[in-house]
């Protein structure tokens, strides 16, 4: 679409020849060269709609992102579309690019991002917002949606953070709510038609506003009341719906992506074959935005899982498999899946793992199955809250006895280290709640020594600061101030070390509370917070998720400069509790959860009343299923994992080798003698 980028016959010129001489001068240049195994480069003219998919963080974090990898493949399978990828470049290269006039580029064919029709940006965290501005600026795309013309890409935001896109409403043209697999196709259809009909930008956006799940912030006005709160959010045209409902991909077995995982040359944070075994979660942990906005639970069948693992390992060569979801041990057929995969890949140098939030003996059984023939280093449990009272507040039900019994089992079965995850700064939390983490850690070490019969067991306590998130029962809560969190964690450290014998076997990991406060500002902010984001970026802020780049002072000062004009401040957005009737910035965006149910659940939290998991118990009327026309999808699925001939080794595995792939060209072995 862009007219600004240099083109040859409508095809944008790659920037590689200008980029290459800069690469020897930067750190880790391999992250900018592309050429990943399974990457796709489609001739520009073969596609009508050109997508640049962006993860607004460093390549090493962005490359393994499953969401981006899925959409990359889904779009590239369409005959009328092509998709390339772009990531945030580090400041060393960004400076050289500005000096030499090299624009933000895709790593696939090194085309300028400004030449694409759609720039789709996936936000896993709000701390990527300043990087969005940096990427737009490097791309030569106007920062403000209002300043863009038909020549510029449509800037689309997606991902979990997009469930409250208001802080970046001025910088994006479109927002996609919910699962992306189908909506990217619908957007492609509309953009292709708009290009064919020669529609201008405004008309294109109005048509896109009619796509279910697509929110066009520029077609809405926000009115503010005297007290600084929002009075109303209203569409300014009939083309925009009053409420935008999220998209839900109903059958995961219809979407077995990624089929061909990208295998980078550069080192990245997750080097494994990841398979999403289900989407959604019904545990109802009240702090967990992901669990709330991805309902209902939709399981991939055990056959679907095993086929994806087999195909993905062959296509990638990875030696690790991650069975991903929000709480993978909760898959209704996880026992069979674990056993089937462990049988299939035993002796092939393939490691299996899954993230789990459960704290029970079943978790240990499962881990034991998965590590049957591998190493057992650490096992992770997430009690989340230090005291039983607090765990009722957050709806994470596990008793101290249960936890101790579980970790004892883990130590007995050979694990040397147990990791425990907690949060600090939760609603109603007191110093006493946090100090109970020390008691629990001591108990864990004591029980572990007894169970393992040795003194050198280890427990690591990892603590994250709680950030209230939109579309959760805690969306009304006051966030704890950084000094409250920091003080509690200091007291916790003292308490852990008060018993030297036990304390020396406990590791404590935490981050200070300041970045979390800014994450809180960006999570629950409205359009006025966009002024702060832009001010911070203009002041040099970016890579805010990285402690070496994050500056609390910069954010604090920008907030103090930009917000008072609106009669609000940093505290108003963060440490202030909201009342039931306040209009929240995201109220017009529908995640399927009934607002009344969320409020009731918030009241239950304050009364320390827990809520059951609707996967196993009757519906508690959160609203998602009737609202979205969806339902929980769980097993049993009946089908075998994979046709036995393909799934099982043809000969019993007697010894280990290094690969699960059977290559007929190599299976015969060599002749005994040379020709």
């Amino acid at each position: 679409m862009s007219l600004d980028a240099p083109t040859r016959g409508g095809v944008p010129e790659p920037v590689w020849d200008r980029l290459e001489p800069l690469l020897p001068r930067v750190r880790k240049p391999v992250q900018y060269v592309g050429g990943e195994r399974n990457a796709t480069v489609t001739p520009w003219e073969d596609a009508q709609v050109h997508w640049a998919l962006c993860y607004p963080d460093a390549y090493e974090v962005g490359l393994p992102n499953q969401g981006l990898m899925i959409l990359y493949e889904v779009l590239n399978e369409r005959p009328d579309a092509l998709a390339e990828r772009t990531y945030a470049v580090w400041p060393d290269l960004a400076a050289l690019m500005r000096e030499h006039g090299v624009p933000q580029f895709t790593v696939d064919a090194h085309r300028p991002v400004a030449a694409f029709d759609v720039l789709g940006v996936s936000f896993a965290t709000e701390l990527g917002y300043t990087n969005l501005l940096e990427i737009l600026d490097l791309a030569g795309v106007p920062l403000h949606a209002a300043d863009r013309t038909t020549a510029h890409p449509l800037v689309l935001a997606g991902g979990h953070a997009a469930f409250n896109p208001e802080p970046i409403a001025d910088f994006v043209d479109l927002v996609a709510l919910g699962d992306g697999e189908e909506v990217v196709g619908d957007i492609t259809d509309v953009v292709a038609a708009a290009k064919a009909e020669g529609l201008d930008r405004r008309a294109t956006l109005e048509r896109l506003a009619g796509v279910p799940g697509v929110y066009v912030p520029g077609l809405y006005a926000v009115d503010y009341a005297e007290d600084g709160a929002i009075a109303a959010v209203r569409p300014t045209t009939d083309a925009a719906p009053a409420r935008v409902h999220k998209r839900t991909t109903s059958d995961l077995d219809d979407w077995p992506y990624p089929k061909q995982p990208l295998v980078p040359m550069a080192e990245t944070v997750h080097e494994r074959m990841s398979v999403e075994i289900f989407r959604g979660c019904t545990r109802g942990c009240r702090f967990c935005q992901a669990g709330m906005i991805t309902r209902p639970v939709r399981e991939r069948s055990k056959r679907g899982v095993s086929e994806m693992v087999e195909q993905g390992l062959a296509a990638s060569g990875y030696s690790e498999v991650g069975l991903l979801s929000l709480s993978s041990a909760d898959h209704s057929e996880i026992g069979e899946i674990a056993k089937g995969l462990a049988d299939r890949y035993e002796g092939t140098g393939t490691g299996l793992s899954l993230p789990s939030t459960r704290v029970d003996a079943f978790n240990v059984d499962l881990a034991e199955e998965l590590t049957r023939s591998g190493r057992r280093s650490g096992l992770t449990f997430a009690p989340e809250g230090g005291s039983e009272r607090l765990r009722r507040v957050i709806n994470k039900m596990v008793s101290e006895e249960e936890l101790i019994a579980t970790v004892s089992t883990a130590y007995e079965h050979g694990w040397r280290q147990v990791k425990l995850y907690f949060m600090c700064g939760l609603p109603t939390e007191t110093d006493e709640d946090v100090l109970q983490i020390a008691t629990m850690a001591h108990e864990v070490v004591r029980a572990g020594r007894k169970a393992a019969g040795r003194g050198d067991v280890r427990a690591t306590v990892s603590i994250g600061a709680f950030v209230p998130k939109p579309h959760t029962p805690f969306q009304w809560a006051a966030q704890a101030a950084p000094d409250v969190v920091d003080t509690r964690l200091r007291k916790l450290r003292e308490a852990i070390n008060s018993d030297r014998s036990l304390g020396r076997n406990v590791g404590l990991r935490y981050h200070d509370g300041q970045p979390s406060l800014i994450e809180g500002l960006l999570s629950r902010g409205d359009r006025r917070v966009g002024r702060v984001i832009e001010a911070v970026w203009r002041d040099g802020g970016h890579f805010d998720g990285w402690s070496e780049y994050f500056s609390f002072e910069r954010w604090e000062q920008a907030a103090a400069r930009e917000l008072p004009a609106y009669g609000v401040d940093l505290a108003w957005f963060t440490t202030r509790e909201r009342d039931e009737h306040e209009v929240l910035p995201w109220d017009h965006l529908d995640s399927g959860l009934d607002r009344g149910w969320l409020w009731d659940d918030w009241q239950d939290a304050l009364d320390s009343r827990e809520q059951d998991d609707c996967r196993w118990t009757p519906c508690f009327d959160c609203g998602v299923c009737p609202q979205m026309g969806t339902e929980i999808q769980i097993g049993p699925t009946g089908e075998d994992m994979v046709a036995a001939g393909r799934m099982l080794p043809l000969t019993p595995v007697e010894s280990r080798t290094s690969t699960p792939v059977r290559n007929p060209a190599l299976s015969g072995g060599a002749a005994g003698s040379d020709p």
Partner: protein
Amino acid sequence: MSRGGAAAHPSAPTVAKVRMRFAKRGRARFSSHRDVARAMEWALRRAGVPVSLSHGFSPHPRLSWIGAAPTGAASEAEFVEIGLTRDLEPSTLAREVDAVLPEGLSVLDVVRAGPGALADRIDTSVWRIAMPGVEPQALVEAVAALEAAPVVEVERMTKNGPRTLDVRAALVRVDVMPPLDDRHPNDARSADDASGDDGRPAGDLLGGASDGAPEVSDLRDRPHGSACGTLSAVVRHTTPAVRPDDVVSALRTVAGLEPPVPVLATRTAQGRLGASAELLDPLEEDRATTGREPHPERHVGEDRPV
């Protein structure tokens, strides 16, 4: 219970070893040794090659790496030794692995390992260093100054801070190569040969004369009309190693030569320095003891030139 060193399935023994020469070209030259090692391990798994595993708590595939080219440098002569749980035809293994390597990595030669350590057969590299924007005549003069100096010390930042090394002591010979346009396009290797009579390892299993093709395109893709002085340097492996960048630094030190843009270095050969300063192919001895493979077909230019 099976864990730690007492695995239920002990690693299968190494029954055969192969030695592989491979190339790192085009944009893959920006990869580090660690990147290449990971990519090779994954490619071997994709190809279904039964690599043997080490014993112990955390088994890893038995790959022995020798003298990796630095990040940013291309190479036509990287070497790795691979332990196998089954004996395989080297040519089949070469073909199957080459087919699944990422863009820029190519298998050039695979032989069954004979007796003796591969590392003992490698003590010298030949580097071709192209310097876009440097007039060949200026390069000739700088090289003459370098050859005339008894000691040329340069400083390089290492993990342990700055280190000083004598480039001159490691240099066996340096030659300025004739301008590319004066050579036949398919004859890029002739210049390498000039560096040491026989810089090219004998008996290329897969590549033959086509090996040079991607490198030629590396040079030819650069803007026409601009000068590109190119030298060939035979460098003895010392500790710390003298890298192509150090040779360029040495030219800067002795003659003030300042390449306007980053140079493009390619290792064209590795081996042992013979009595008359020729480089001996380290895999030749294995071929002699384990038998010569027939030359398989190979498609030229499978890697996209960058």
